[in-house]
Structures are given as C-alpha cells and as structure tokens.
C-alpha cells in the first residue's frame, strides 16, 4: 500500500475523447485526482463520467492528450497488465454470472497467477471485509440480492489490493437504505486502505458524503468545477453547479461541519429516578431534560404535566418527548435537526462516553457563520 | 467445374427451356402455387393456435414442444405414408408441406405473443380493454413482426421442400432435379437446385422487405 500511494496519482492533461460517430464525450480535460483520496465525478446522464473513468484503465483510448498514473503514461504498459493493477467496479456490479461469488472475487489474483488456493483464501478474506457471510462464496451472483452483488463487485475490485480503484456508479441499483449502508462501509474501508479512488455517481448527496474532491461535469464532456465538497457548496463556480447542488445547498454544507468547538450551555435536568417535587424544583422553562442513570438523555419532560401530581410520586413512567445526545463528531446538520425536532428547541450535547454535558440552541447557526470565513 | 457452370448458364438462359408446358416458367408457376397454398393453409391453421396459446398462456408446453416435434418429422416419410394411404394425388405433397410449416408458424406466433411486455398488456387491460380488444388492438400488432418472421421462415422452408412434389410425379421445380437424376443430366439437377434456391431467396428478401416497411417505426 505504501508503495501504492507513491505511484497512484492520476493526472489528465488536455484529454479529449471523440467517438467515431462524432459524439464528444470528454472535452479538453485537465485535472488531478489526488492520491489516497476519493475523487467523485458527478454530472447528468451522458456527460462523459464513464468515459473519463474508462480512459484511466484504457478501456477507452483518448483521441487527444495524455493520462498519467503515478507519473507514467498509461500507454506505456500493456493494457492487460495495467488493468490488473487497477480495481474496477462496474455499474450494477457486472459480475460473471457463470462463476461462483468466490471465483468472481478471485478473478484478478488468478490472472496474476497466485495459485488457486491462495486466490481463494484471499477471496474468502474479502468476503468478510465487505460484510458478506462466508457461505455466500459458493453461490452464483443471481442468487444474491442487488446490494450483495454490489459488495461482491467491490470485493472483486479489491482482490489484488490495487492502489487505484475505479468505481462506476457502484451503488446505483440499490434502494436508499442499502445504499447508505454501502456508503458507510466504503468510508470505513477507505479509512483503513487509503486507495486512490475515482468514483462516479449522479447523486450529489452521495458525492458530498464520500468525496474528498468532487468534479462536476456538464453535457458535452466539460468539467465545470473540481473542488472539495465544502468549497463547492460554499462557492459554486456558476449557476449550473449551483443548480446541480440543489436548493438546500446551505444545509448540505452543515453536514460537512462537526459540532467540535461549538459552545454549549448548562441545562437544568433531573435523573429519571427523581420525584415530581425534585423535577418541579429543577424546572426553568416548560421543558425539562430527564437524564437516564448512565448519564445519557432520556427525553424531555413537559413540566405542565407535573401539575396536580403528588410531589412524592416518581418521574419515571411519565411521557417523555424523545431527545438524542449529540457527540462532537456529529454534524451541524444533525444538531440543527435536533434543535428543530426537540420541543425545547435545543440539541442535547454529550461527551465521548455519552454523558450529557449541556445543550446548544441558536449557536448552531452561529457556528455555521464562523465556519464561513 | 467451369464446364458445368457454363452448361448451367446455357441451360438457364436458353429460351426454349423457359416456354411451354414443361418449361421453366410453367414449373416455376407450379412451384409457387404449391408453396403458396401450403403456406397459406398452414398459416390458417397455425395462427389461431399460436395466438390462442400466446394470449391465454395456456398450452405453452405444447407450443414449445410442437416445434421440436415438427422439425423431427421426416418429410420423405410423411409423403410416402400419405401416398400409401391416399393414392396418387397432390394430397401427400400438401399434407407434408403443411405439416412442415405449421410448427414454425405456431412457435413464432407464440414467441411474438409472449415477448410482449407484461406492462403493455397490463396497460391494455388497465385502460379497460376487453380480452379481444387487447388481442386485436395491442397484442397482434405488437407480435406482428415475429409472426411475419415465422411466415417467412415457413415460406422458405416450404419452397425448398416443395421439390418433393416431383417425387410423387407432380410438377414444380423439383421435376428438374428428379428428371435430371434419372436422365443422368447433372446440369438439369443443378439448374433445378439453383432455381429453387433462387426462388426461396427471392421470396425471403421480398418478405423481409415487407416486414421492414410495415414495422419501420419499431426499429429505433
């Protein structure tokens, strides 16, 4: 891997691709995809994302310009050799239907002459890495669900541990819930593996979530802007980009900023084991935070509901509005969501152990202001 | 070989060869007549069967297997058998040609019908079409290209097999093949073969053209 990082920067120099039928799929593209990071290509259908990707592993040859990988022109290597060193996850998995899952994953190791036993062992290992049960290995692709197939596709691309990974709408075919799961897994994997990944999608949320860098393409094969997501959201280059990022661009930006450093204020609270009298004493406004024995938020108590109850009766058992504790690593967006959802109009903050430390209200918006400098 | 070809050319182009009751023109006409009649009758029998199976989905097993069965039926055997049963007439020829054509038409019609997307059939019903309306207005027009292909395949096969008429003493282009054989006249055999193949290919091209014109808008 260390070795991988050194040779894995991808650079396009005035690259164009014109198909014989006259379509210009990519138009004078110059860009660098940084090492060890995820570059996401987005843009509407037919804007040349796939073509850009496929020029890297030479499934398509550019009509002009050069592409270098770690400083070497990709044309210097025989195509098959080059490709064995680049993982490729094809849109909708593109698995070999006539091979078992294990054989699918072992494709590149086998081509590299690893020997059957070693290749299979590696495949079994990867099955675990992508979160599939071991017995899935013996099945055929069409015996798996769409989401599982996507995982196999990723595992297959990772099999020979290539420094570079090309992923073409790898999560395109699955429903939003499974998609979020797969994204989480990719983030987890990448934290460990630090591959140079080029990732194609047309889902801007996915791009913001995964990308260290986002390249926005426009029909005709022009790249309009290439920047880290926060910069893109804060300063879209033009109306096309702004339009593409959607009307809630400001809020999306909040999802990129964490709560770390956002101040919190003390909050009046009672333990869930307290009595009604204790609760009345602690109450400052209409809503009182109830804390569970482990120190985490149990919920918001409507103090109006205390009226008429005997002072000695227990708080436990009274109806609580839900409260979620937010850690410093949570995003401003989730804090804002909490602020909006909770009846008290504030988000409960907790420390790394989950113990309530205070609440943040309007400061969420102020924090946003500060991050805008 | 060159010799044979130039003889063939001479045979095909000599004007005497074309005219008269034994001439190529007459034989060609007979051949077309046998083939046309057989294909039409086969279509009249096979189309309703194919449409019924395709529309109702009942008897699919039958539809799939009849094609295998039909292909396996040896034409020479059928001709002989029907000849022995019914005596010297065109019946054996027509029976065997029709038997040859039916399975092709049935299977293609059926294939055309089941190739229609379930969504489209659903749409027809969902708009309030009755079964027959759906059949006439949606299913048959959509299956038409494949149905036509079936007719085309059947016609070609029938044309090349209609030589069998000469086997039981009737006319058609097969006469040249059987007579040429008996008279040890290879040129005549070859001439007959070329004429049959030419007729089949021509009909094939014409039907393909018709198909293309009729269903032009489906090609995109």
């Amino acid at each position, binding site marked *: 891997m260390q070795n991988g990082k050194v040779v894995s920067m991808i650079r396009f120099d005035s690259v164009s691709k014109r198909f014989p039928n006259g379509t210009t799929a990519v138009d004078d593209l110059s860009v660098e995809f940084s090492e060890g990071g995820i570059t996401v290509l987005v843009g509407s259908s037919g804007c040349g994302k796939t073509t850009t990707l496929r020029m890297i592993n030479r499934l398509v040859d550019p009509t002009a310009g050069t592409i270098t990988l770690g400083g070497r022109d990709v044309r210097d290597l025989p195509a098959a050799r080059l490709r064995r060193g680049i993982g490729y996850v094809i849109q909708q998995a593109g698995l070999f239907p006539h091979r078992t899952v294990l054989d699918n994953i072992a494709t590149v190791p086998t081509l590299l002459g690893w020997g059957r036993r070693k290749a299979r062992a590696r495949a079994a290992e990867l099955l675990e890495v992508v979160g599939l049960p071991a017995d899935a290995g013996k099945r055929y692709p069409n*015996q798996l669900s769409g989401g599982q197939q996507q995982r196999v596709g990723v595992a297959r691309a990772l099999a020979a541990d290539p420094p570079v990974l090309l992923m073409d709408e790898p999560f395109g075919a699955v429903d939003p819930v499974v998609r979020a799961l797969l994204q989480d897994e990719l983030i987890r994997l990448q934290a460990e593996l630090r591959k140079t990944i080029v990732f194609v999608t047309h889902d801007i949320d996915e791009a913001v979530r995964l990308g260290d860098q986002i390249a926005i393409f426009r029909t005709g094969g022009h790249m309009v802007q290439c920047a880290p997501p926060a910069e893109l959201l804060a300063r879209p280059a033009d109306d096309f980009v702004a339009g593409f990022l959607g009307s809630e661009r400001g809020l999306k930006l909040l999802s990129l900023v964490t709560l770390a450093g956002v101040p919190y204020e003390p909050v009046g609270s009672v333990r869930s084991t307290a009595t009604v009298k204790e609760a009345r004493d602690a109450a400052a406004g209409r809503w009182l935070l109830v804390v569970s024995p482990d120190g985490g938020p149990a919920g918001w108590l409507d103090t109006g509901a205390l009226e008429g109850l005997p002072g000695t009766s227990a708080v436990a058992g009274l109806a609580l509005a839900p409260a979620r504790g937010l850690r410093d690593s949570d995003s401003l967006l989730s804090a804002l969501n909490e602020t909006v959802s909770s009846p008290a109009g504030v988000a409960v903050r907790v420390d790394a152990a989950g113990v309530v430390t205070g609440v943040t209200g309007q400061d969420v918006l102020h924090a946003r202001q500060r991050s805008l400098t | 070989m060159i010799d044979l070809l130039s003889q063939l050319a001479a045979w095909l182009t000599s004007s005497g060869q074309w005219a008269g009751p034994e001439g190529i023109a007459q034989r060609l006409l007979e051949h077309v007549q046998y083939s046309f009649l057989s294909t039409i009758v086969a279509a009249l029998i096979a189309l309703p069967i194919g449409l019924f199976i395709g529309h109702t989905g009942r008897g699919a097993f039958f539809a799939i297997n009849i094609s295998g069965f039909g292909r396996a*039926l040896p034409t020479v*055997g059928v001709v002989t058998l029907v000849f022995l049963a019914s005596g010297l007439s065109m019946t054996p020829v027509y029976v065997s040609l029709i038997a040859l054509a039916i399975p092709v038409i049935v299977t293609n019609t059926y294939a055309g019908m089941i190739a229609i997307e379930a969504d489209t059939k659903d749409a027809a019903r969902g708009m309030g079409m009755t079964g027959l309306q759906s059949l006439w207005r949606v299913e048959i027009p959509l299956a038409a290209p494949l149905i036509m292909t079936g007719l085309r395949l059947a016609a070609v096969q029938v044309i090349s097999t209609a030589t069998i008429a000469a086997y039981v003493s009737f006319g058609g282009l097969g006469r040249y093949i059987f007579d040429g054989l008996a008279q040890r006249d290879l040129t005549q055999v070859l001439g007959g073969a070329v004429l*049959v193949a030419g007729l089949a290919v021509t009909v094939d091209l014409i039907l393909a053209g018709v198909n293309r014109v009729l269903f032009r808008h489906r090609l995109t």
Partner: protein
Amino acid sequence: MTIEWQWLSTHTDDLWALSLDHLSTAIPAVLLGLLIALPLAVVAHRIRPLRGVLLGLSNIMFTVPSLALFVILLPITGLTRTTAITGLTIYTLVVLLRNTVEGLDSVPAKVREASLAMGRGRVGTLLKVELPLALPVIMAGVRVASVMTISLVSVASYIGYGGIGQLFTDGFQRNFPTPVIAGVVLTLLLALAADALLVLVQWLCTPWIRKGARA
C-alpha cells in the same frame, strides 16, 4: 392402411441396426457443423461486415433442396457416407452459426467489459467468459440442428446412406405402409431422445442457471 405387427416383431434387429446407421450419419454431421460454426461465428460476431455475408451464405445454402445437394456432392465425394455427412453439415450451419452469433451477442456488454477490465485478454475473455455465457443459446441451436439433421438423414437414402430413410423407399416400392410408419416413429423417437439428452447436457453444464432460483 394397417400395420403388420408381425413384420415389426421380426425386424427389431434391423430397426436397431438402421437407427445406429442413422445416428452414425447424423452425429458426425452435427459435430462437424459445430466445429465449423464456432470459429466462423466468432469471426462474424467480431467483424460486423462479415456477419451479414456469412449468415446470408448459410441461409442460401439452406434453401438448396437437400436431394439436389447430395447429388451435386456425389461427383466430389463419391458414393460414401462422407457425401451424406457433408451435405447435412452444410444444413446444420444455418442454425448453428446464427445461434452462436446470437449467443455471443447475448453476453451482456458489462460482463465482457468486466473481464477485459480485470486484465484478461481477448482470447481469454472469449474462452472463459463469452462462450460459457453463450452456451444456453448455442445449445438451443445444437438442439434444433440435431433434430433437424436426424429428420433430414432419410433424404440420403437416395444415395444409400439414409439410415431409417431406407424404410421409406422400401415401403414405397412395395406399397407396404408398415416400414414407413415404423420409420417415421423411429425418427421421431431418435430426435426426441437426442433432444432430451442435449437438454440434460446443457443442464449439467450451466449450474449458474440451474441454481439461480432467485433471479
């Protein structure tokens, strides 16, 4: 028209021998056809302009009446089984070629591409990915070709290699339906048996389809 059961019972040996004879013409024809069709189909599949030419040629050959074809071959290959097999092989091509090309076409572009992208060469992709995936369609062609060939062998009785077809000539000349009926039934049985066998072979060769219950 009545069947002389007596004749049947005294001729089982002959029927058996004829069936074997029938198959020894039909089987080589189909195998040979396959051997020729596979490389041609690969060429037709890869080189677009050749596809029309090859398929067109095989189509035209198919329209030549079988009897004439045998007779035309006679001066070249003589009164031998080779003549019968050659003629029938030419007929199998029309189905085998078309189906093999279609089979190769049916391989999803994604899968072909996946193979290339993993770093497999063109030949490797053909052998390890395209042909196996085309197998169901190719086998469908082999089934049609086998059944068709089995029924066509009888035409070769005109040159003495008709197998079961001899029964037709015999019955015809003697005005004797029994052998003809026996011949027709026997041909059908052979064809259906061959077909069933091929279905089994295909079933065994394509575990991924068999097990793809979820698809």
